[in-house]
């Protein structure tokens, strides 16, 4: 499954959330990550994030797509990072 994750958390916890997300997803731009993820890892990531954030202050949104077949991705302006697997 494909996930787009966006977060808006208190500055104190931004680094923590980012570090956790980087283990699973590709960084796209500030507060946005995306990538292919397995069902199990998705749950794991969600649980880990729940442990980091404060329920009454922070917000993290997961957009999940079963396949990327019908989605398209267009960038206007700068491409901040590539997620090629050939470096």
């Amino acid at each position, binding site marked *: 499954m494909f996930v787009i994750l966006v977060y808006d958390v208190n500055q104190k916890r931004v680094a923590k959330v980012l570090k956790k997300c980087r283990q699973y997803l590709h960084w796209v731009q500030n507060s946005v990550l995306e990538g292919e993820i397995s069902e199990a890892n998705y749950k794991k990531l969600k649980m880990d994030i729940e442990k980091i954030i404060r329920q009454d202050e922070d917000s993290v949104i997961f957009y999940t797509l079963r396949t990327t077949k019908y989605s398209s991705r267009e960038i206007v302006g700068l491409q901040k*990072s590539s997620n090629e697997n050939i*470096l």
Partner: protein
Amino acid sequence: MKKTIYIFSDGELHRKDNTLFFETESGRRFIPVEDTGEIMVFGEVQFNKKFLEFLSQKEIILHYFSHYGYYMGTFYPREHLNSGYMILRQCEHYLDELRRLTIAREFVRGAGKNIRQVLKYYHSRGKELGQPLETAEKLIATIDDHDSITALMAVEGNIRDHYYHAFDIIINDKDFTFQERSRRPPKNYLNTLISFGNSLMYSICLSEIYKTHLDPRIGYLHATNFRRFTLNLDISEIFKPIIIDRLIFSLIGKKMITKNDFDRDTEGISLKEKAKKCFVEELDNKLKTTINHREIGRSVSYRRLIRLELYKLEKHLMGEKPYTPFIARW
């Protein structure tokens, strides 16, 4: 499915924030560990023990290739699927000449029939391949008559020989003629491509073996020795024609690789970096493509096909179901 990371640039690999981090002069990139299955290193890359520890922990295999693109070795993390039972079964089948032959025969049959399939495909596309096709058929029919490993290897070699000579008819490009199979170093463009592709195939099969209980040191067609992994060579034989060779045909056919993509070194010929990248990219795409698997009734990727082959072998070794190789139907 977990991704393969191919590294061509020079730089440093680190463990950082519990994930992978690749730093070069021109840029830095985080790579999600949880989404990484293996790393293939072509460039000059530095890393430390801490990094290797991390790879072991995450069960990520790291293959490295020389400047010329030859397979050099693998960082093989600690076995995580330890199965004394499976090793004993593997040895049992290796030590018993008859049982070893049964398995080796199937590998040769698989390789031969997949070669025939490739030839058939191009024959139906109007290439004059009647002659090699006939010889291949004849040779495949003799597989059961031989009862020594060396004789089997000879049959396999013969089939391959005729097959490689048919490459000239299939490719039909004067820049890429086959002449004869030359290795270490390859002496012409086509041989260079074949060698590069085969190296990649061996390492991919090894990665898949790591995910099963099988021990890559015990092969059946290729004799087990003191130096190298051999089971991955056996499995590769089956998939080389349908994955690597077809890829080469399409790369040359679409002019994605031309004679300008090669470097002539002191002795042999090697691929330029751009061409290596192109090859690897197309191979990665190919491994991801899915086909409909008739037996299990759902679509599987080429990569998964290799793993299924290993599972079949495990079943054979445990005496559950005799092993039959995968034969392409297209």
